[in-house]
């Protein structure tokens, strides 16, 4: 019986009903979209770090990362890379010989990290070839090719085909040096990185270091992010003596960034929900006020307070439930649309684009979050409706009728 009354009440006052419906719909749409947007932002950061810098997993000799001492290389690096390529879940694998040393030109010298990379693997792992702004990627045409960052090239006054001398302490503790020719100049978002990282072929690095054909770092890119833990565990088992790190361990700053963004999102969602709640409370209050006469009538006819409360509550529930699809549908559509096209943030910040940082955010939603938002909005709406409903109860029938 209560249901019927509640249902009819909804239709009786179309304006009010529509208002609540739309409020819920907007709340849902906003909540879902915002969450997706934020997800997209975080994902974009992580993706960019994983796909162009740190990869998903890195493997080293356990002592290597302390001081990058060349003595601690990976035994059988080549065969390891081959077998890792075939490992389940691994998309790309590549070996590197990393050496800390100096780069010098006639104009000066600078401390650099010499990344000896496997040319084709590296292109796949970190899109190095894509970062090149001048010249070209390793091609094997010239001996001792080197690719340097734009900032370093500027500092040492190097151009394409310039010569730079790399010096470092080799495997036996002696000073080794070699002349390298610039074949390409790269640029990334991160200028300090550009200033201190140079790339040569792993083969050339190994020869100079006295460790021909060896690697001291292996990086892996996985097919799916979700496989991270599984693959890490499998590798730890397979190579118990080696250090296997995932991207969060290699780059704790990234992990911090992600957590920080998550936290902020929760906070802002809270504020948005609050705004929604106020909106609904106000509307419902107004509505209750408007229905004073009607409620007073019902009370005087003998309907008990609890039932009136229940009636108002039911009306709200119906409206909220109706509002859900009304909110979810546009939300999904918006997400689908922006997902394809992406949201270009460069209108807000033009400095962004000067970095080659992707300005475009692709909102996306994880299934769990979707349900969470729905729950949040529904609960907010219901609670917001409760307050005015209680007020309705405190109306005195006699006064109410007279209104």
């Amino acid at each position, binding site marked *: 019986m209560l249901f019927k009354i509640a249902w009819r009440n909804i239709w009786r*006052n179309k*304006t*009010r009903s529509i*208002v*609540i419906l*739309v*409020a819920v719909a*907007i*709340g849902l749409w*906003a909540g879902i*979209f*915002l969450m997706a*947007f*934020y997800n997209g*932002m975080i994902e974009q950061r992580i993706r960019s770090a994983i796909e162009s810098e740190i990869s998903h997993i890195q493997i080293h000799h356990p002592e290597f990362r*302390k*001081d990058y001492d060349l003595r601690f290389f990976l035994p059988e690096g080549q065969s390891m890379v081959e077998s890792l390529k075939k490992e389940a879940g691994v998309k790309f694998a590549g070996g590197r010989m990393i050496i800390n040393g100096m780069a010098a030109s006639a104009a000066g010298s600078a*401390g650099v990290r010499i990344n000896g990379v496997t040319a084709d693997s590296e292109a796949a792992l970190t899109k190095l070839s894509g970062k090149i702004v001048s010249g070209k990627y390793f091609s094997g045409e010239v001996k001792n090719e080197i690719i340097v960052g734009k900032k370093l090239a500027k500092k040492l006054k190097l151009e394409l085909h310039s010569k730079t001398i790399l010096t470092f302490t080799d495997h036996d503790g002696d000073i080794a040096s070699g002349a390298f020719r610039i074949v390409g100049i790269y640029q990334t*978002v*991160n*200028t*300090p990185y550009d200033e201190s990282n140079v790339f040569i072929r792993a083969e050339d690095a190994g020869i100079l270091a006295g460790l021909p054909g060896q690697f001291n770092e292996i990086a892996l890119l996985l097919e799916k992010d979700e496989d991270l833990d599984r693959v890490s565990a499998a590798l730890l088992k397979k190579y118990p003596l080696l250090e296997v790190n995932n991207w969060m361990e290699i780059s*704790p*700053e990234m*992990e*911090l960034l992600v*957590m*920080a963004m998550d*936290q*902020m999102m929760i*906070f*802002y969602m809270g*504020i*948005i929900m*609050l*705004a*929604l709640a*106020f*909106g*609904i409370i*106000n*509307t419902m*209050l*107004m*509505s209750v*006020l*408007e229905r004073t006469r009607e409620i007073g009538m019902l009370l005087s006819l003998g309907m008990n307070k609890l039932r009136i409360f229940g009636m108002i509550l039911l009306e709200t529930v119906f409206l909220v439930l109706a509002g859900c699809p009304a909110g979810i549908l546009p939300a999904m559509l918006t997400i689908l649309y922006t997902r394809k096209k992406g*949201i270009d*943030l460069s209108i*807000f*910040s033009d*400095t*962004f684009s000067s*970095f080659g*940082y992707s300005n475009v*955010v692709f909102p996306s939603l994880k299934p769990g979050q979707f349900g969470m938002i729905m729950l949040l909005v529904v609960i907010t709406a219901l609670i917001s409706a409760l307050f005015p409903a209680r007020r309705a109860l405190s109306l005195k029938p006699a006064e109410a009728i007279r209104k």
Partner: protein
Amino acid sequence: MIVKLTWRNLWRNKRRTMITMASVSFAVVLAVLMQSLQKGVFDNLIKNVVSFYSGYLQVHKKGYWDEQVIENSFALNDTLLKEAGYVAGVQTVVPRIESYALASSGAITKGCMVCGTDPLREDKLTQLSGKLIKGSYFSTEANSVMLGAGLAELLGLTVNDTLVLLGQGFQGSLAAGKYPVSGILRFGSPQLNESMVYMPISAAQKFLGAEGRATSLALEITDLGMLESIQQEMAVSAGPLYEVMTWKEMMPDIENHIRADSAGFYIWTGILYLIIAFGIFSTLLMMTAERKYEFGMLVAIGMKKMRLGLMLLAETFMITVMGTLIGLLLGLPLVWYFREKPVRFSGKMAKAYEQFGFEPIFPTVLEPQIFITQALIVFGLAFLIGLYPVWSAGRIDPVKAMKK
């Protein structure tokens, strides 16, 4: 006359008016809170970043930043220090002498960054003493050094061991010295952790053969908004032989990261306004619906629609103004509270933050500009929405309206 009428109208139905006003007030409070929080978090981030090492501004000899060698140091005189301190907004001035050097212990040698500084002032700027994990903080009298934990580990040194430093001194002299380690520091940034050696400035000057000289003055300021004006004033006061740089110029990457982040927040704010606007709208909608009868009556007895519209306009105006003012009054203590007692988060997140040397808080800022801007925006929004009842009154059909 209109004012009186409007006022009476409004108070005739207290509840209705209150509810409408409340929607505007809440809108103001939320908008103010959101913006204050946003700015507060960013400012705090900047504060954390600059107190890592650089300070908000630095003064160097002109050309030092491009070529950071000891030859580009300047003579540290009291006048410069004093003048820097007098510039309005500058809270602390830290004189430093910095140089790349070689740290050695036993057979291990590693490059390091020697920072000779004033222990007390440095502490004010970077909370250096708080980073101490072993031993004791250095003092001006002692000749001892403090190392980053990463560096100490690499060299196999701990408190009371001896550190050997070797490097390029001033005017071509050789810089060499042995120093006892008084303390070990842990920095959030791995780079600092693995390369910093702190010494009292006089000991460092002696080491580098650069007595009475400094490479930079690092400044701490009270109000981030004054950054550029302080820079200008300092540049004038120091003269053409010096360069004054802000943290933005010294760390352009971080500045860009922060700016990039804030771009996303525009969207958040936009959505908040949307929801707020809707809240106000729905309230007004209900109000209009409720008063349909009243309006119909007024028109039926001869009130010109235009007059009715004007009357409603006046009502809207009053409600909006009052609502905004109340919102501001409510917002003030709220924002102030969150500035004094910011939200502290804990758990894994907090640990990660602290590891980096960041405070795990979300503070707000109390800035009149934010209050004014937000108030104006909400006011504008509310007023625009408030035109709806006016418009609907214009379309009223008295007969239909009174049919209730």
